[in-house]
């Protein structure tokens, strides 16, 4: 047991938690943007999977990381566009649209991989490129913090930047305001002349773009190849992180970090003597507990607010 505690309080643990947070964080931010516009994007898992594949293919065939990134990004946008077209234009249920995209992704990625590489599981026969890791000059030299914060993948830093950008975009920018007003009350927004459908299109596309980086981090950062079903439910965990994030980018970041830690914990807890099946459950149990806790807290606050209001109304 002390060994486990030591590994949990080690620099590596925090470093690894940050790394495991990255894909979830990207997707959770994507889910956040869509959610604030009143759209539940359950297709994140599929977007991540597709982008993970096309990023690898693009970089392998062009020999350029930038082209690879572009391929992954365009794929994410394209799938989001399909989802937007069917859910907004054709009025399909957004949940079903997402389920459909995820279905297409699980089989479609294997189909594409097989057609191109003749391999149904991994893309190791291609030499694809990887986003570089970055040493941050000054921070690197700080004793403990340097080891935790420096030397991460470019995309990990980008995900942190994305938190700030998404926060600023949603809370401070004009399009962000539109997204929020559409999400809060579409009819009211329409009545003041906001084009609801167009705003939702934009939000979904942005959501797809963010999720695509999450996918590319898996195949071009964390690993150096595409592997069948490599998202392994991270798109769904991202939905949970967003639900816990209280609708803000900062909250979503912290919620994603909690999952990163839960996953890192499920790595560290291995070999403690617990049956491995219980250790494997940790991230998912953490998610449900988080949801319950969050929902309970929110309910309490609501009750208190209501009580407060009633008291106010009661007093002369």
């Amino acid at each position, binding site marked *: 047991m002390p060994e486990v505690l030591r590994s949990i309080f080690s620099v590596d643990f925090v470093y690894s938690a940050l790394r495991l947070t990255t894909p979830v964080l990207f997707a959770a931010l994507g889910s956040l943007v869509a959610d604030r516009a009143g759209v539940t994007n359950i297709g994140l898992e599929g977007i991540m999977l597709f982008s993970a594949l096309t990023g690898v293919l693009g970089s392998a065939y062009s020999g350029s990381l930038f082209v690879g990134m572009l391929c992954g990004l365009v794929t994410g946008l394209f799938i989001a566009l399909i989802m937007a077209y069917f859910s907004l234009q054709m*009025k399909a249920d957004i949940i079903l649209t997402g389920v459909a995209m995820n279905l297409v992704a699980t089989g479609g990625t294997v189909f594409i991989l097989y057609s191109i590489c003749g391999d149904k599981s991994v893309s190791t026969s291609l030499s694809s490129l990887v986003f570089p890791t970055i040493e941050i000059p000054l921070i690197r030299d700080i004793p403990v913090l340097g080891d935790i914060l420096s030397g991460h993948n470019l995309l990990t830093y980008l995900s942190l930047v994305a938190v700030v950008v998404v926060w600023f975009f949603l809370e401070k920018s004009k399009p962000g305001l539109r997204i929020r007003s559409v999400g809060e009350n579409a009819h009211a927004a329409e009545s003041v002349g906001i084009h609801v459908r167009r705003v939702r299109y934009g939000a979904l596309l942005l959501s797809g773009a963010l999720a695509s980086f999450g996918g590319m981090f898996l195949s071009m950062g964390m690993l150096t190849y595409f592997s069948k079903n490599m998202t392994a439910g991270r798109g769904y965990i991202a939905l949970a992180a967003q639900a816990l994030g209280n609708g803000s980018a900062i909250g979503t970041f912290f919620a994603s970090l909690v999952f990163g830690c839960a996953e890192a914990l499920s790595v560290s807890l291995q070999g403690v003597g617990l049956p491995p099946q219980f250790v494997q459950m940790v991230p998912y149990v953490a998610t*449900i507990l988080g*949801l319950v806790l969050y929902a309970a807290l929110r309910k309490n606050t609501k009750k208190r607010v209501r009580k407060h209001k009633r008291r106010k109304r009661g007093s002369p």
Partner: protein
Amino acid sequence: MKHRTKDRPLPTNRQIETRFTLIRTLVAVGIALAGCLILILVVSEEPWDAFVAFLIGPLESGKNIATVFETAAPLVYSGLAVSVMFSCNQFNMAGEGALYIGGLVASAVAVKLSLPIVVHPILALLLGGVAGAVVCAVPGILKIKLGATEIVSSLMLNYIVLYLGVYILNYFLIDPAAGFPATERLPESAQLPTLIPRTHFHVGTILAFVLCAVVYLYLYKSKQGYAIRMVGQNEKFARYSGIGVGGTILSAQLAGGFLAGMGGASEVLGSYTRFQWVALPGYGFDGVIVATLAGNNPLLVPLGALFLGYLRVGADIMSRRSDVATEVLSIVQGTIILLVASKLFLQHIKHKYIVSVAEKRESLAAAAPEAAPEGGEANA
């Protein structure tokens, strides 16, 4: 009346609606299959043979048709489960976990208890269903009590149920002599008898189709079913008309979970010799496809499930006989869901038709005012 006998009576709006739902589904299927053909043309050396194997293969022999039915059976169970939950507007994805745990509990009953024939499988099926109901109730309770979104909690719950199940399998039910993670062979007394030799067409397959009628009666003829549909259509309105929304939501989840759990049990008892699932079987999401195809109507669920079963058997035969990978199927399925779920797909044609019918009706009414009520009666 006589002067109009050669014309067919004009359809009512409701008939037009039903007819167009059918047409839309068929067109969606057609488009998806056409897309599939294009994909096959791109990747295959012998596209035509592959396509023929895909479409004709499942109908070639009686055995293949039976295979379509047995493939459809678990899809019927999960399609029914999802239909009930979706009718209540609850996007509970725990059907997947419910099906898994249903299979596990049923096989535990089969292996650990020794009971006489008939009683044994019935008890296993029922307990499997109960276990499924418990699983599906969890996201429901979380939603009612705390307002936690059922989609997210149910997706997470599936993984928890899986790992719990694998633990139970590994430590309590495993047969060390098997040389792989599986229970002992299910005793004959607990198995669902096979009806057509050399297939897995078993009693549970029939039961699945019978259940469709039962669920239809539950959802459309019982008071609780009415409440479920009311809550699904408009929760606020249901609340105002005095329906206990929380209880209704929970009962929909319980019913859905029970059906899914029983599906898992029937699948294991009928088609397997040992319980050996160490990954989620995937029927839960298939249920979403079936329910979408069936428009959440239990009576149409068998059609949706059979169609999906047909596609799957076809894809398998195709991959056996040609160079096309089975995975092409998931693209077809996705496309079908997208198109069928699109409320506005082919909408303009429907509108045009409704308008033209209305115009005809009006002109008829203008020409023969006394015939109109009769025509209306004939249509009703």
